[in-house]
């Protein structure tokens, strides 16, 4: 009975080698998966946000201290002598055209002022 010729290493060494190869495969697979996940997340977060339908409000960092007073609940008192807040009269008042006699042809108005 001849000894097997293909067994050039002891049996216990071969098993250990197989275990190391398996472990290496698992380690390499885990590393590859982690790399792929990192790349995937990087790609996802690198995508620009979809453009809003309207211009978004600018969220600037606060440059002033917050207001310490509530806004006024009543209208401010109008300052006397404030020309800007006065309604200004025309230089000339409108003049109504006199009623036309029947034989006169009144010119038609250029336009009409009325409710709209």
């Amino acid at each position, binding site marked *: 009975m001849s000894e097997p010729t293909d067994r050039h290493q002891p049996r216990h060494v071969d098993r250990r080698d197989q275990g190391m190869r398996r472990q290496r495969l698992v380690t390499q697979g885990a590393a590859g998966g982690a790399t792929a996940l990192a790349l995937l997340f990087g790609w996802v977060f690198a995508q620009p946000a979809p453009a809003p339908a309207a211009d978004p409000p600018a969220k600037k960092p606060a440059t002033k201290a917050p207001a310490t007073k509530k806004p006024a609940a009543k209208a401010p008192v109008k300052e006397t002598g*404030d020309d800007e807040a006065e309604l200004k009269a025309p230089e000339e008042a409108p003049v109504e055209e006199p009623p036309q006699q029947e034989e006169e042809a009144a010119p038609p108005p250029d336009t009409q002022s009325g409710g709209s």
Partner: protein
Amino acid sequence: MTSLRAAPHRAAFSALGTTAVLLVTDGAVLADAERLLRADLAEVDAAYSRFRDDSEIVRLAAYEGRPAPVSPLLAGALKAALRAATATDGLVDPTVGQAMIDLGYDRDFALLTTVIKAPLKSLERLEGSFDHGVPAPRPAPGWWRVRLDETAGEVIVPRGVRLDLGSTGKAYAADRAAARIAALGCGVLVSLGGDLATAGTPPEGGWLVGVGDDHRAAAPGDPVVTIRSGALATSSVTQRAWRRGGRAVHHIVDPRTGDVPAPVWRTVSVAARSCVDANAAATAAIVRGDGADGWLDGAGLPARLVAHDGRVVTVGGWRSHA
């Protein structure tokens, strides 16, 4: 007035939900003037139309009380509106936007198909009560809460406040367009829905303007006035009226109540230095009701007031032949 008077050159078209009329004293500039006016009004519509989701004034709501950038055009219109509010003690207030919506005026008037448009001609039609399901009127938040920094081009509109420049916006556009067109070297009259501004040298004999309830057509007996400068505006509750909650309402809101004002004056026409001032005074007079004639007279503003019963009162130097 002689019948040989040369009529000014005229163009008319639809804009801002109403009719724009352009009159110039020089026919050679009419085409350029019309182009300028159309471009102006397109800018105005994009800046402060309440019925366009993409208008600047509608997009202010997204800022919810934070400073919002505004274009020079909107800043100018807001400044005019806030000044009118101060000058009328808040009877004309740009913060009535939500009150307008609550009354049902939430889209272009031509598209108000869910309500029955009802022209108002008498006091009786204003009577009635709110149905259930219709929001109860609430006072406007108040114009003083709106903070405008024109230099910085920023405005702060408190959260929940909706702006409506209906009482001054068209008038501001008319003033602005008339001044720009007069720079072409002619006399000009710009009328937007019957609120008209003039600039430049008037035609011989002045501008002839019919005055009545409706800017689209004169009614028998409507007076014709001559103006040579400044502006003339008319506010009336007989136009832009509809039914809401079982009663007739219209587009003029009393900011103190958020509801239509008490029915005293049907139509008020006021002459002033600018169309913004004329329109603010006319609207404030409708809102003020009793005593508005004395208030206009005290302010030196020539005015013609027509009560719901047809009684006509002229004050402030308005020369009447009636």
